[in-house]
């Protein structure tokens, strides 16, 4: 949950990158860490396994400067995507203010995307949140693999699978090449801050 210090005019909020295993959540954060050095306010921390799979979470703090008179800080997290780390995902999701759902564009991962989205919905519900109300952006990652002749789902198909009811902003991306990462993050930040503005009415 966002921390709002009225006296110091500071807001700190939490955005979580969610999605199935190996979809590119950590790669997103790594790219942000490398490319947005001015906004990054600390080291990126990754707690992962030997195989470079996220074990607990990745963490990256950012400062966005003053927005409507308030100093805005953001904490970016990723969750582990592997099925067996379900309880850790739930822990990391606690107090989330905005979510970026990273979907894997590979055709072979279609089912995993849907299972992960369902998992997100379940975990949010356990915190009394609705997936339809929480600030949410969807990223369709790994679009670059089309160039390697790997079967990808079309954006239309992925939108139908994952966004038919949610109708949230979605962005194609290639986290490994960096394309779409900044746009996704910017949209995620805007949706989150819009929601917090309504909640705290700080900009009035």
């Amino acid at each position, binding site marked *: 949950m966002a921390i709002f210090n009225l006296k110091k005019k500071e807001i700190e909020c939490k955005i979580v990158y969610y999605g199935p*295993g190996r979809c590119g959540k950590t790669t997103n954060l790594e790219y942000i860490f490398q490319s947005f050095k001015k906004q990054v306010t600390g080291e990126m921390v990754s*707690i992962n396994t030997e195989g470079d799979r996220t074990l*607990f979470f990745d*963490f990256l703090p950012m400062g966005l400067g003053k927005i409507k008179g308030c100093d805005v800080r953001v904490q970016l997290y990723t969750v582990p995507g592997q099925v*067996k780390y379900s309880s850790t995902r739930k822990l990391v999701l606690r107090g989330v203010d905005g979510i970026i759902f990273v979907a894997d564009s590979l055709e*072979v991962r279609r089912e995993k995307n849907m299972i992960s989205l369902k998992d997100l919905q379940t975990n949010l519900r356990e915190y009394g949140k609705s997936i339809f109300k929480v600030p949410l952006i969807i990223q369709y990652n790994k679009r670059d693999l089309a160039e390697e002749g790997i079967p990808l789902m079309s954006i239309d198909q992925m939108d139908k699978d994952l966004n038919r009811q949610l109708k949230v902003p979605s962005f194609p991306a290639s986290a490994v090449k960096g394309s779409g990462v900044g746009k996704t993050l910017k949209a995620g930040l805007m949706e989150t801050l819009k929601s917090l503005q309504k909640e705290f009415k700080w900009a009035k």
Partner: protein
Amino acid sequence: MDIGVQIKTLLNEAEIYRAQGLFSDARDKYQAAASIITKIQRLKNKKSLLKTISGKIASLEETTQKVSTGPTSPELSEKGQDLIKDLFGKNELEKAVALIKFGQIERAVEELTNLLTVEAYRVSAANYILQCKIRIASTDEAIEQYKDWFASDLFAPDQLEAIREYLQTILAKKGVVADLPQSVKGGSSEKDPLFFEPEDDMLDITSIGITLSTGPEKGKMVEFDVNFQSGDMLSLIVSKTDETLIEDLQKGENLKNVQFYSPIAMFTGTAMVANKTKIEAGPKQGDFCLDLKVTST
């Protein structure tokens, strides 16, 4: 598509999936390529091609094994533990509890032991220490810890009674009968506002074993991977080729002697068939989705 191009495409896909860490998808593509190669009557280097693919599959299986049996909660560095405390706890007690939730039990016990000297957290800290003792050692250790505290003057009588009641509840859930020394009758029954009820954590279950009760393989235990878990509900995808194994299972049926395999423990329990449906569309068309509710462990 030309056979040669087909094989090349499959091997290319397999390589990319392997590089992406998608080991089972990579294995499927290697196997598909091997299957095509096997059917070709005359192919130069057929044997060596199949041997190479077989080697790649074996290597994938080794890596898959390593990944899937890796520790669920290894002990992190002090820096990692400090980060967990900072990010997931607002006060000292919450920080210690965060350590427990991320499996950093030894460090959690250290922190909680320090909190025994803080009046506001004393009872909650003690309860969590007992929880940890049970988790990393045994109920006997937790009982011994309580008895040590009972013999000391660290706790006021009503605090000791609250701790005793808490430990008695956990032991009862585990079917352990213990005669815990009692300092006062009817201690504070007021719920400690700082204490977080231990969640009845359902361990992450990665696969289950069901003993077949009917059919030609009656009495045999068959294993299925858990596709998705939400609390005590498990979803399995059963291949259409295994239909005969589950065709007699009916919704509402109780399954006894179910083996549950989690990354840290294997345990036996019972489950109920919550749902059984055939998948009508998509890549798993024809397979079955079997939902089981864990009823006891």
